[in-house]
């Protein structure tokens, strides 16, 4: 974990959730910056230990291996409420549970039970949810200009030092590592789903099969990263035009879908693009 500072601009970098996590912010004192550093790192470590399906002792692993009710805390209940809402909104294009799917999950206050054979995977929501939580943590400490970037899922507040916004490059699926465009955002989240780096890894929950609809990448700008992440994955599964129609149902969300042959975007996406 590394914390560097230039004046009152701080940059925190640490590895977690199999990626690089970055937190840029402006803090009034060094002590405050170090407090945010400690709390953010601790929260992410706890979150990963709790929700990673790759850690045998995690809550998700226990839910997946148990055929009985598993007790969950209030935060997990809220997370599942969100899943419930998004599964409904996306018509099943987003579903964190393998067949027979989220609709077969039994819930009661403080507990959950999966049907036999089903597996819970929060990979499509966990990192984005963590971005939002760390973002909120930073804001609760009164930090003004904040950027949270966990493996290219980004949420920002305020402006980058010396600029009028935070400038987020959109990765070109044809040339990973390069940007095809840049968006300027001040209080938004930006998330991208694509299979150009790991072909076939996005599956359509409705069929269980890898998505082959010509989509290469979907970028969504939304009010928070969890919403942006879920919408980008669901829009990728749906493809154009249904994917764009889904995003337009969500107030304030904009999207751009890049297919093998074309680019589609919602009406106001261009307002964020730096020309």
């Amino acid at each position, binding site marked *: 974990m*590394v914390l560097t500072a230039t004046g009152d601009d701080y940059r925190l*970098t640490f590895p977690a959730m199999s990626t690089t996590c970055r937190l840029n912010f402006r803090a009034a004192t060094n002590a405050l910056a170090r407090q945010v550093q400690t709390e953010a790192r601790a929260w992410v470590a706890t979150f990963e230990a709790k929700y990673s399906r790759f850690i045998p002792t995690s809550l998700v692993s226990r839910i997946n291996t148990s055929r009985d009710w598993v007790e969950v805390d209030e935060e997990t209940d809220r997370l599942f409420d969100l899943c419930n809402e998004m599964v409904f909104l996306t018509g099943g294009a987003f579903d964190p549970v393998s067949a027979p799917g989220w609709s077969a999950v039994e819930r009661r206050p403080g507990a959950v039970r999966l049907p036999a054979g089903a597996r819970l995977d929060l990979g499509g929501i966990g990192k984005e949810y963590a971005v939002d939580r760390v973002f909120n943590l930073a804001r609760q400490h009164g930090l003004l200009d904040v*950027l949270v970037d966990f493996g290219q899922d980004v949420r920002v507040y305020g402006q980058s030092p010396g600029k009028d916004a*935070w400038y987020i*490059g959109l*990765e070109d699926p044809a040339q*990973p590592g*390069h940007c095809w465009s*840049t968006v300027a955002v001040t209080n938004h989240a930006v998330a991208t789903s694509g299979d150009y*780096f790991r072909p076939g890894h996005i599956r359509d929950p409705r069929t269980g099969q890898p998505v082959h609809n010509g989509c290469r990448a979907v970028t969504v700008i939304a009010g928070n990263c969890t919403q942006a992440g879920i919408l980008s994955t669901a829009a990728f599964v749906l493809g154009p035009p249904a994917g764009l129609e889904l995003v337009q149902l969500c107030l304030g969300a904009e999207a751009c879908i890049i297919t093998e042959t074309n680019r589609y975007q919602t009406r106001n996406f261009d307002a964020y693009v730096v020309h």
Partner: protein
Amino acid sequence: MAKNSWCEQRVAATLNRWRRRLRWGLPLLALARAHAEDQAGYRHEYYQEHDGRIRVNSDVFLVQKIAAPWLELKADFTCDAIAGATPIGAPPANTITLRDAATGVVTSGSTIRSYRKAGIDAMSGASPGGTVTVRSASELPTAQITDDRYAGNVSAAISVGAHQFTPQVSYSDETDYKSIGLALNYAWALNQKNTTLVAGYAHAFDKIVPNSGTFLQQTRHKDSDEVLLGVSQILTPQTVVAVNFTLGQSSGYLNDPYKGVLFESTPLISATEAALYSEKRPEHREKVLALLSLTQAVSPVHASVEGSYRLYYDSFDILAHTLGLTWRQKIGDRLVVAPLFRYYRQTAASFYDTQFTGDPVVAAALVPTYYSSDYRLSESHTFTYGVQVTVKALDWLSFDAAYYRYEMHGLDGKTADANYPTADVVSLGGRVWF
């Protein structure tokens, strides 16, 4: 130029300009040919730089038609497929110095393993990185590029007595670079055709388009003009000498949009990640070239030798010398073998360096007016050598094959050797006359 550029003013651009320069020589060659005939040709060329750098596969189609005794039409079409790695402008991490803008304290940048374009705070994508990364502190940062280039050229040589006028139109189209060129060449054969005077003017309208990996946010333009004056003189039946002078200027966007530079005082994005700024070249460039060539027949061995010297100077302060030597050996009635050697040496542009002082945001006063870390503007020399073999299989059919090796080396002692490419060029072609 073109893509590339985190790409370089890539190979396609280089080839483009190179070919454009060659066109100046066409009037001389056209007049020197004893019997112009209708012909069509095709050539495939494979250019491969070592160590996974740029690779270019080119297909070139050529057709020539003598429409009338006074009118010779010519057209060619080229498709280039370009792919490979190209330096992004940053030096290897173990040579980077970082200077705190406030305290002046200097530290090493050897912890840096990734590079992100300045001006972008983060990237949204589905790959784990989103930056150009290196595995070690000694590795030269490069980026992968791919592009296709399509180029065409049409000319009509119109003869009026001893005078020949050759208007010419050309175009080139890449994802990130479009170019349209217009030229008019004039040649006057006098003194019983022992002397040929040539003059020409060319203008190119270039458009540089934002693309993946570029620092450009909007389309920019570049305009170029060239004026040529020259003379070719047959001194003896065995000796021809030619002298050409070219004056040129370019205005507009002259940066390579893919090339970045590293400033000493730019804060690291993280402990292992540095920011690159776009290079900044002057928006006007003037150049002057002089070319002297001598061709001597060596009759006893059925051969000829051509020696040439080219002097180049431009307002970037680049002074370059090129020495060339080609031996054309005829073997029997149907075979010509032509080994070639060329040596090129240039000084550095006045605004070239591997890293620059200050930072455009936090220490702007220390930043020079212009800056570039494009190794092609560094002090360097280049050796090109190879051989071309032409076989005239039938009176109406010939084949040619060529192999050239291209070796570029730095001379300034500070630019990393890994910047300079070594390349092999192989071409195979055929031509029919009818």
